[in-house]
């Protein structure tokens, strides 16, 4: 079961500074449990970020990304109130989408 992401998007000029925290074990498939059994590989494979429905980032990730990953990006041409949506899909087919609104510069 996936837990919500935390997405913050703040306007800096006409660029939105987007910061995303995700909750995911990101197992590398190299660790062993207490019984010596290999813990199956489990990681986010694909991340897409859209700005008002238009894809601005489409990334393929590997096991090399850490547990509870953080992703930061800057979206040009954003305005306050714009929608930023983030979707990740992991290698087990689990999927999660969360959305945030671009906040005006504070």
């Amino acid at each position, binding site marked *: 079961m996936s837990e*919500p992401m935390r997405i913050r998007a703040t306007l800096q000029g006409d660029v939105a500074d987007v910061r995303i925290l995700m909750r995911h074990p990101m197992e590398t498939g190299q660790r062993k449990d207490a019984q010596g059994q290999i813990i199956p590989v489990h990681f986010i494979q694909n991340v897409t970020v859209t700005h008002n429905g238009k894809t601005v980032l489409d990334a393929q990730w590997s096991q090399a990304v850490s547990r509870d990953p953080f992703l930061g990006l800057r979206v040009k041409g954003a305005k306050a109130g714009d929608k930023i949506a983030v979707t990740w899909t992991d290698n087990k087919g689990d999927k999660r989408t969360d959305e945030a609104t671009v906040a005006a510069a504070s």
Partner: protein
Amino acid sequence: MSSVRRWIAAIAVAALPWPLAAQTEPNGLALGRKMLLEDNPGELWIDRGKDLFSQKRGPRNESLERCDFGLGPGKLEGASVRLPRYFADTGHVQDLESRLLTCMVELQGFKREDLAKSALSPALSSGSDIEALAIYVTSRSNGMKMNVTLDHPQEREMYEVGRYLFHRRSGQTDFACVTCHGDADKRIRLQDLVNMTDRKQIQEVVGSWPAYRGSHGVVRTMQWRMYDCFWQMRLPELAYGSDVSIALITYLHRQGNGAVVQVPGFKR
């Protein structure tokens, strides 16, 4: 290898670390920690704790919104900076986590033993409910100053017991807390140890728990910190929410009065 080559190699090895060391030590470590702090996964636990707090859960299908942390039912702002404190309904001095236990038992009908058993989650797990709730409640006091008063005689007693335990050598290794935490610039392996007798250093500690522990991948609480210190000192296992743990936390929090609470903290 010719002697000339060996000379060049020696010079290269000797010369290399100098400029590097000047740039990365000791500010590199501090800078790295600061970067980790900016987007702390502990924020995710705060969100989860917030949901858990208002959800109707447990055998009685109740939320924790009537839980009293000392300022009245459901009042969270500034509650954690006064903890541990004496609670008239239980007749005990309680810290944040033992108070959470009380509420989850009394209001929601959970079994105390089950909660205490699962309270400290294994490393690299998804974390326990109590950890999420503890960091959420503490986060509601962010920016406020620790202010543990010892007005009630039982609070004063807990503080004195805590001070005694902090300084008393015990166990097979004859350790006291103060053995490791009583002097400046001590370390265990590569980890700097906090000097708890220094006001500023202890304030940094009490203001930053619960914290996301990078190497464990979960949020850790003050009860966990006490539990793990006891384990490291090879003392008997510290029971979750026990009077011993509350006494130590009372002592430490009182010593750290004036610390500005800022959670989630980030620990290595």
